[in-house]
């Protein structure tokens, strides 16, 4: 029974990691940038949801606003910052790390901005759902309606993305633009614009992650930092350029964390992400579903 309980806990946190990983993978595929600002963008959209909720007093109404906000922020970031960065710094000794630095700067910028507006206090962004586990027979399982919504919501978003990529012209353009930008441009795809759309999708995924996970904890300018790291580890486990890999990686990581928490203890959770990441990179550097060309330089 303990085993099943742990599995359930892991699945619900894993769904959140999967969303974050999805956001990172979407950006990585389209622009070869790991967007460290994703945590910041997600926190900003969650604050937006918080504001909407303080007006409407309805969690469900606030979520679409958060999602739209997240998409708009991401599109803005790509169109204004990343595009001019790509135009200017394609040469020179730091060209490879310039996007990393830029997204870090952006993370810092958003954190200070949110700190200025809302302060560093812990805010409550609550959902009307109970966080009390369901009871089956006499046993209460650690899986609440809130967890159920998290898992279903995350799966729904992933399903929508999969459908868009598979069945729509937009999805085809997105795939083409990330696979062969030059040739896509020749074939009449506006690659820059399509990339911005890719960023917007990623922003939306991150916003969903933020809006779903925050009711289980609290809201502060850096409350999603750990989620960023977990999302990155999940994305690397999945291979960093595979959407399905990101989902699998997130779920695996969530379940792995839950078991570590259950059987080893809370003391190692923070370091566990790092250790798992190092292990993955040594044992199977291209992840479970990643393409062969990967992270080695030479």
């Amino acid at each position, binding site marked *: 029974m303990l085993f099943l309980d742990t599995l359930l806990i892991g699945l619900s946190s894993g769904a959140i990691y999967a969303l974050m990983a999805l956001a990172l993978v979407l950006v990585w595929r389209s622009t070869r940038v790991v967007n460290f600002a994703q945590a910041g963008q997600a926190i900003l959209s969650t604050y937006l949801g918080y504001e909407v909720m303080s007006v409407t007093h309805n969690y469900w109404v606030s979520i679409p606003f958060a999602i739209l906000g997240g998409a708009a922020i991401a599109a803005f970031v790509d169109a204004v910052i990343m595009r001019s960065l790509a135009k200017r710094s394609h040469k020179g000794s730091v060209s490879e790390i310039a996007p990393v*630095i830029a997204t870090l700067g952006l993370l810092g910028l958003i954190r200070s901005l949110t700190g200025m507006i809302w302060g560093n206090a812990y805010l409550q962004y609550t959902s009307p759902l109970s966080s009390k586990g369901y009871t089956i027979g006499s046993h209460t399982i650690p899986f609440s309606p809130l967890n159920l919504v998290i898992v279903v919501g995350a799966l729904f978003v992933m399903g929508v993305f999969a459908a868009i990529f598979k069945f729509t012209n937009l999805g085809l353009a997105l795939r083409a633009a990330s696979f062969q930008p030059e040739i896509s441009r020749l074939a009449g795809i506006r690659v820059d614009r399509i990339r911005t759309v890719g960023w917007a999708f990623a922003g939306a995924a991150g916003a969903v992650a933020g809006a779903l996970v925050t009711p289980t904890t609290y809201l502060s300018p850096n409350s999603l930092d750990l989620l960023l*790291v977990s999302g990155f580890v999940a994305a690397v486990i999945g291979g960093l350029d595979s959407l399905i890999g990101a989902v699998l990686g997130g779920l695996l990581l969530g379940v792995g964390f839950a078991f570590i928490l259950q059987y080893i203890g809370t003391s190692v959770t923070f370091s566990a992400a790092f250790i798992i990441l190092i292990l993955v990179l040594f044992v199977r550097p291209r992840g479970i579903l990643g393409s062969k060309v990967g992270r080695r330089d030479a």
Partner: protein
Amino acid sequence: MRKSKSLSALIFLAIGLFLLGLSNFVDELRVYQGAQIAVYVIAISSIILLTGYSGQISLGHGALMAIGGYAAVLSYTYWHVPFLIAFTIGALAAALGGFILGMAAARLSGPYLAGTTLALAVGLPSLANQFHILGGEQGLSFDIGEAPKWIANKTGGDFTQYKWFFWVSVVCALATIWFIKNLLQSRFGRTWRAVRGNPSAAALSGINIGRSKVLAFTVSSALAGLAGALLAMLLGLVAPMAFTLTLSFTIVTGAVLAGVTNLAGSIVGAVVLVVIPEFTDAVATHLGGSEKISANLPGLITSVLLILTVIFAPNGPKLHKRKKANN
């Protein structure tokens, strides 16, 4: 060649004596900030060595500084070694950590390395809560005491502890820059530049790329460890709160503002990092802004500077200009 070396040694000595002399003429706060600048100079030049010359990135140097700080404090407290030995132990401990991390790092390129070191920066400082000996959230106190009598007597007047901190930090910073400067002119420096410039060509001319990268990471980590030990001295303690993710980001910011391939720029970067909070405090008080604004204004300004630098002068202000002149 030999002549220029002794000349630059003289210049270093002159700068050192000038700075140490200066500490007699400014007030306590400025002396403390001078010491802060010196510590940042060491941390930033460790990033410059790593990123600018070996082409690797680290968002986890705050964690390596934590290793250095804790190792120094623990050895000082439990083994009662002189504080300079404690600093050395701190640097060596961080070097060991950096060596292990570097083994993983050498196999990773840009974003993977950034993510891995980021995970370290998030994970490592919280370990302090798990081991009783590390003192948990409150951390451990660290007091290297007053300056030795013979120094204090020679300079005359009251030789405060902050002044002593300043002396120690400045001497360490100058020694660090001197060391890196020479290292970059040595075989290792040329190897790193070759690997950064063109890995395939470097490998073909017989350079072991992995080994060269691990070495760069190890040396850089040792310097970060020294900076961490000095930071612990300035703060008077080591605690997880002192080595946050923000610290890691801050020193990367300093390095980028300095121009990552420009060792002398580390001083500019360090001064900027110390001056900005001072400046924004003044602005915030002047405008009568709330605590929310004044607490976050420094971060806002450094972040904006970082983004602007990386877009408009990605190779540092100085180098960028030179390139334009060549065209």
